[in-house]
C-alpha cells in the first residue's frame, strides 16, 4: 500500500445545513471536538487551523476545495507532534449527502505515505468525535468525554 487511508461513514438524522454548521462553527465544534474551534475564511486557498482551548494550534493547513453543505477538502498537517508534523500534509475530505431523513457523512483521511503515524493516530480519534457529533445533532447533547481537551495533551 503506497498510502495510508481511512474512511468513516456515519448516518445522522439532521439536515446538510445543520451538519455543515456543526462541522465548522465554533459554538458547535467546541461541544464535540474536544473543546477546539477552527479558523478559516472558508474559501479555496484560505488557510485553516484547529485551535486548542488554550489558543495554540493543534493542526493547520489550507482549504483545497469547498462546496458548502456538500463537500470540504482540506490539506491538513499536525502541529503538535514533531514526528507527525514531519510527515507533511494529509488530505481530509468531508462529504455530505442527503438520504431520506438522514445525512450520510463520509470522512476520508489519507496520506501519501505507507504506515503514516498521523493517519494511525487520527484513526482512534475520528470515531469518538463523529459519534459525539451524531449524538449532539440527534439529541442536543454531545458525549461528555469530547467536551473538553484531554488533560496533559
Amino acid at each position: 500500500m503506497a498510502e495510508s487511508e481511512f474512511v468513516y461513514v456515519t448516518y445522522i438524522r439532521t439536515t446538510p445545513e445543520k451538519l455543515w454548521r456543526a462541522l465548522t462553527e465554533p459554538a458547535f465544534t467546541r461541544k464535540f471536538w474536544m473543546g477546539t474551534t477552527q479558523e478559516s475564511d472558508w474559501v479555496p486557498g484560505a488557510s485553516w487551523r484547529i485551535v486548542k482551548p488554550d489558543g495554540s494550534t493543534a493542526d493547520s493547513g489550507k482549504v483545497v476545495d469547498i462546496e458548502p453543505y456538500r463537500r470540504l477538502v482540506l490539506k491538513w498537517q499536525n502541529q503538535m507532534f514533531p514526528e507527525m508534523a514531519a510527515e507533511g500534509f494529509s488530505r481530509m475530505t468531508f462529504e455530505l449527502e442527503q438520504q431520506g431523513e438522514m445525512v450520510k457523512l463520509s470522512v476520508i483521511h489519507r496520506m501519501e505515505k505507507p504506515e503514516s503515524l498521523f493517519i494511525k493516530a487520527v484513526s482512534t480519534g475520528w470515531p469518538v468525535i463523529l459519534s459525539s457529533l451524531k449524538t449532539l445533532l440527534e439529541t442536543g447533547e454531545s458525549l461528555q468525554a469530547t467536551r473538553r481537551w484531554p488533560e496533559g495533551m
Partner: protein
Amino acid sequence: MAAMGTDVDMVFKALAAPERRLLLDRLRADNGQTLGELCRHLQMTRQAVTKHLKILEDATLVVTIRRGREKLHYLNPMPIHDIAERWIGKYERGRLRALAELKAKLEGEIDG
C-alpha cells in the same frame, strides 16, 4: 438500503458469519482493496465474496470509494464504535482496556 446503516440488527447479522468477519480482518490489515484483491488467498468463490460484501455494505461495516475504474473497499469502524458507545459507556472503558491488556499479556506468556 444503506441509509438504514444505523440499524443495529443489520450490523449484528452482518457480523454473525465467520466469512464476513474474515473479510473485515483482511480490510483491517490492508484497507482499501478491490474485489479481486480481497478474493486472493481466500477459500471462497468470487460470487460468495460479492454476496458477503453486499451484506457488510448494507450494514455500513464496509464502504466503497471509486478511484478511477476501481472500486475500493474500506472497513468502516463507525457501527462497531456506536455499539461500544451504547453498551460499554465511557466509565468502564479504562477498566476494560486494562483487563484486555492483562489478558493479552498473560496469553502471550502462555503461548510464548
